[in-house]
């Protein structure tokens, strides 16, 4: 048990280092000369160049630059945004809250709806319910989130005018307290529905296939032969064993959503990290771009690690 934990932790740390290194390599091989940008394009003074290089440590060998880079990252310094002139760490901190709000709410709903539908479909394999929802799962699995979001906007915001199409609150009215909460909820319905619809198919498929798999195991046959009721077999044995792959999926999906939510945020102008990264791209705000990528990657690594630990707690067979 202890050895397994240490191994997982080590793998997590390794991942973070791989991510940091990939990031460093990308910055290094990217086209463009930062010193030239700082000096101005028309200006080419060798003295100024060497002075600037010394100031930013660019005259040092690559290995030393890499160490400086790691030191800065671990002290929480992700640089300053070129456009807004604010620390990147602070900007990300503000953007993470709306993103996590969307991610957590939609993942919870998708998990509940997708899993329960998957279980029903598996118990009635071949029924109309199974056929219809398996078909729908195929289609929604293939639907790009941003397009689905646009379709919801066309239908519910543009034609029916039921919900607002963009933002997190109405900027024209400044309300506080409970009314602000209702306002945010109203704005949240369309983006959250998009994300739920996009995520349901994977839960549905995994739940269905893992139940079908467990159903054919020999020990279930034995229980049936002994004469235990189907309901009891399902509640006590099938469900418990089939739920494990779903836990893994929650982890993968949470990790994926941290970045995957970006496109939906853009469609609905939701003020999260995803929207931040896209405006950073169009404004060539590299520190923000790098920062968000880094934070998202590290978050993904942490979530994966946490899921591994939960998995151990749920499945007594896993003891490496």
């Amino acid at each position, binding site marked *: 048990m202890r050895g397994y934990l240490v191994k997982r932790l080590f*793998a997590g740390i390794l*991942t973070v280092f791989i991510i940091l290194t990939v990031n460093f390599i990308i910055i290094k091989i990217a086209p463009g000369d930062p010193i030239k940008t700082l000096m101005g394009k028309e200006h080419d003074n060798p003295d100024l160049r060497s002075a600037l290089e010394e100031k930013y440590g660019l005259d040092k060998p690559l290995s030393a630059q890499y160490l400086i880079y790691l030191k800065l990252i671990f002290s929480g310094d992700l640089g300053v945004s070129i456009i807004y002139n604010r620390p990147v760490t602070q900007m990300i901190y503000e953007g993470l809250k709306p993103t996590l709000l969307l991610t957590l709410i939609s993942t919870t709903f998708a998990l509940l709806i997708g899993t329960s539908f998957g279980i029903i479909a598996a118990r009635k394999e071949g029924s109309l319910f199974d056929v219809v929802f398996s078909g729908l799962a195929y289609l929604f699995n*293939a639907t790009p989130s941003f*397009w689905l979001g646009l379709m919801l906007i066309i239908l519910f915001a543009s034609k029916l005018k039921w919900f607002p199409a963009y933002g997190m609150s109405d900027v024209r009215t400044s309300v506080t307290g409970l009314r602000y909460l209702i306002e945010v909820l109203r704005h949240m319905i369309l983006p959250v529905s998009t994300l739920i619809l996009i995520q349901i198919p994977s839960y549905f498929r995994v739940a269905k296939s893992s139940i079908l798999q467990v159903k*054919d195991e020999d020990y279930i046959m034995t229980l049936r032969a002994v004469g235990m009721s189907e309901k009891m077999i399902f509640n006590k044995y099938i469900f418990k064993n089939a739920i494990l792959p779903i836990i893994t999926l929650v982890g993968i999906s949470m990790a994926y959503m941290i970045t995957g939510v970006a*496109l939906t945020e853009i469609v609905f102008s939701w003020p999260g990290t995803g929207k931040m990264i*896209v405006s950073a791209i*169009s404004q060539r705000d590299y520190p923000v*771009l790098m920062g968000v990528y880094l934070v998202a990657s590290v978050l993904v690594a942490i979530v*994966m690690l946490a899921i591994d630990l939960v998995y151990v707690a749920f499945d007594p067979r896993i003891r490496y």
Partner: protein
Amino acid sequence: MKIKTIQKIINSDLQLRLGCYGILFLISIVTFSNALATHDPYYFGPYFLSGIGENGHVLGANQLGLDIFSMLIYGARTSLVIATVSAMISGILGICIGGFAGFCGGRVDQIVSEIINGLMMIPVFFLLLLIIALFGNSLFNVIMVIGLTTWTGNAKLMRSQVLSLKERTFIVGARSIGENGFQILFRYILPNGMMPVIANTTLIMSNAILLEASLGFLGLGNPYVISWGQMIYAGKSYVGTAWWISVFPGLAIVVTVTILYLLSDGLNHVLNPKYINRKSG
């Protein structure tokens, strides 16, 4: 005889059958795009934002007078080229690296597996954004990034295949008559263990199409190439007035990706001995 066997396999599974028909459909669209398109997809016509069926535009025209239907037909080319080439890169890398790691075993296998696990956690989409933003949005870059970031799943599959094949009797037999390691790996193990990787590569093709569409939607697509993602991006500003600009390319993506999913599932079904047993028994 051989064709008949293939036909029988295809007919045995619904998903595989649908997927195969779908692929034929897509390939014929790409092959006969010149004949199918009603307009030149690069021609800026005089009828801006015409609706469905108006002024000879079957599925309407966009804000620049370009014909949506013809753009859809030509967009299929872009999507399929990106999907095929990047999935091939990913498949070849996965087969080679995974096969090598599984075949060597021991330390090498451990190190490669840990690196693969690490790489698997990198969010591909953000990496793609970063690289496209820094290095430009040529098709080559998009294909390379998708190919170079998705091989890890293939490598894992291939590795487990090799691990199980390595101890089979026919491999041990080949070794005993004195064939060397690489001969065994390339002549016996890889061809026998490749099928699940191919099924997974089909899945990667569909993901590549979705990734490319996302890039196009963010305005990071290559403006000299017609792509479905960019068509949706262009239609975003007209959702209230001209919905057809964004609706149809999205539907095209859904159909194409569904076909690839069906194909991948079908291949997995046919290749899984457990499934065949269940059908016959």
